[in-house]
């Protein structure tokens, strides 16, 4: 489904949005291009004066506001944001809010050029081969490369002996400390990870904390030391093999 309206008045715009845009069952994506003013209250306050922009509400509630230039959105709200439309002072007004953390964003529109509503289907996932991308980002965006069911809850977590690259929980809710090395893992990386794991055990008062060392390459000597300490490892770059259900393995024969 895709619908659009060109240069609507505020009331035409509201009518169009109410008729076609759905934020519950069978959700739609909404794109408004026009002049707008943005007021944001939350972790900070900001006011963005009138300007021509693209405002997009994705099917999960994510809001992205783009100016005509630059890669990054000038304003955005995360998935799960709730958005309402009404008319205020003869202008189309979009109010969006969510509670954790409490944030509010109000956008007033004038001179709307186009509104598009569409219901899009996309079940594909972005695949990155990981050879050149930042390993930490790779793990954050796809913790499954480390293991199924892993959730990353914090980057750069401060503990007594330093800063943990990544901290999260595995599928059994066991805390996991992940130390990432960009090149070959060394013995000192093992000691570092061991200290972090011990720090976490003390900080959160649990005996069960897993430690995983991630590096493109982990020499067997280091692997041995890791297993002596009850720690784990992942060879991230080589192991990031694109999920390819059409590729068979030699084990199949």
């Amino acid at each position, binding site marked *: 489904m895709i619908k659009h309206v060109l240069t609507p008045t505020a009331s035409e715009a509201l009518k169009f949005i109410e008729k076609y845009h759905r934020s519950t069952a069978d959700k739609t994506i909404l794109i408004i291009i026009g002049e707008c003013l943005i007021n944001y209250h939350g972790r900070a306050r900001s006011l963005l004066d009138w300007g021509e922009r693209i405002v997009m509400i994705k099917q999960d509630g994510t809001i992205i506001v783009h100016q005509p230039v630059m890669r990054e959105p000038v304003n955005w709200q995360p998935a799960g944001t709730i958005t309402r439309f009404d008319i205020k002072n003869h202008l189309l007004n979009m109010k969006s809010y969510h509670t954790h953390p409490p944030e509010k964003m109000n956008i007033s529109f004038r001179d709307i050029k186009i509104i598009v509503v569409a219901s899009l289907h996309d079940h594909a996932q972005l695949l990155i081969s990981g050879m050149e991308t930042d390993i930490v980002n790779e793990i954050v965006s796809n913790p499954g490369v480390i293991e199924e069911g892993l959730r990353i809850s914090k980057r750069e977590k401060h503990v007594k002996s330093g800063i943990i690259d990544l901290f999260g929980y595995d599928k059994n809710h066991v805390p996991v400390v992940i130390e990432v090395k960009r090149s070959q893992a060394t013995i000192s990386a093992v000691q570092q990870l061991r200290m972090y794991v011990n720090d976490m055990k003390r900080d959160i008062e649990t005996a069960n904390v897993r430690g995983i060392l991630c590096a493109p*390459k982990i020499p*067997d*000597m280091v692997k041995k030391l890791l297993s002596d300490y009850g720690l784990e490892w992942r060879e991230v770059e080589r192991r990031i093999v694109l999920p390819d259900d*059409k*590729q*068979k*393995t030699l084990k199949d*024969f």
Partner: protein
Amino acid sequence: MFSAKVKSDVIKGIIDVTSPLVNEAKFNISPKGISLRAVDPAHVAMVDLEVKNKAFEEYKADEMELGIDLDKLSSIMKLASAGDMVSLEYDEDTNRLIIKIGNLVRRMGLIDTAGMPDSKMPNLDLPAKAVIKASELTQGVRASEAVSDHLALTIDKESFELYAEGDTDTVNLRLPKDLLLELSSPGKYKSLFSIDYFSNMIKPVKGDDPVTILLGNDNPVRVDFDIADKKGHVTYLLAPRIESE
């Protein structure tokens, strides 16, 4: 005990055929020569390699295993020019491989081979066989790389065919029997393969060198060729992709 003298090209050849699949490899040393077998982490491809003692200028060895970091060995071999003589010696006391290139002495730490599993060569029934000049195959694969990420190999009674299809472009390389060094096939056999893997497999062979391809239907392909002036041999296995419906 292991002590050998060999042209740098032979060692470079070993690295070329092995390093696309693994970082570390277990070299099996015996009085007859050196062999190794390695499978890539995704278990898609396997290399099985043998270099006979005849390939070396000097060769003395007992049965033993050397765990070698291939990246390290590769960077060491970059210090040698083509044709340079390289001497290799295992130092039992320090568990190092002493590599001498000219006046340069490089002692390389070895990796514990205990963690390196012995891979089994799967039993395959591959009825079709074609022997092709390396240059023909390389040309076909290079052309395919530009249009797709996988290619189909077909062998029938009359010809060998390589075919790749992208969104808009296709590549076709058909070699009838008289342009092949050898062809024998009881029927038509076809399987699909990842170009990435396949191109790495045939990279080490060049020019008129014959490459033997054994094929079945939706089965791994087996690629065989000689290295080290025919005193060494390489067998690659590559698992197929499943034909898209």
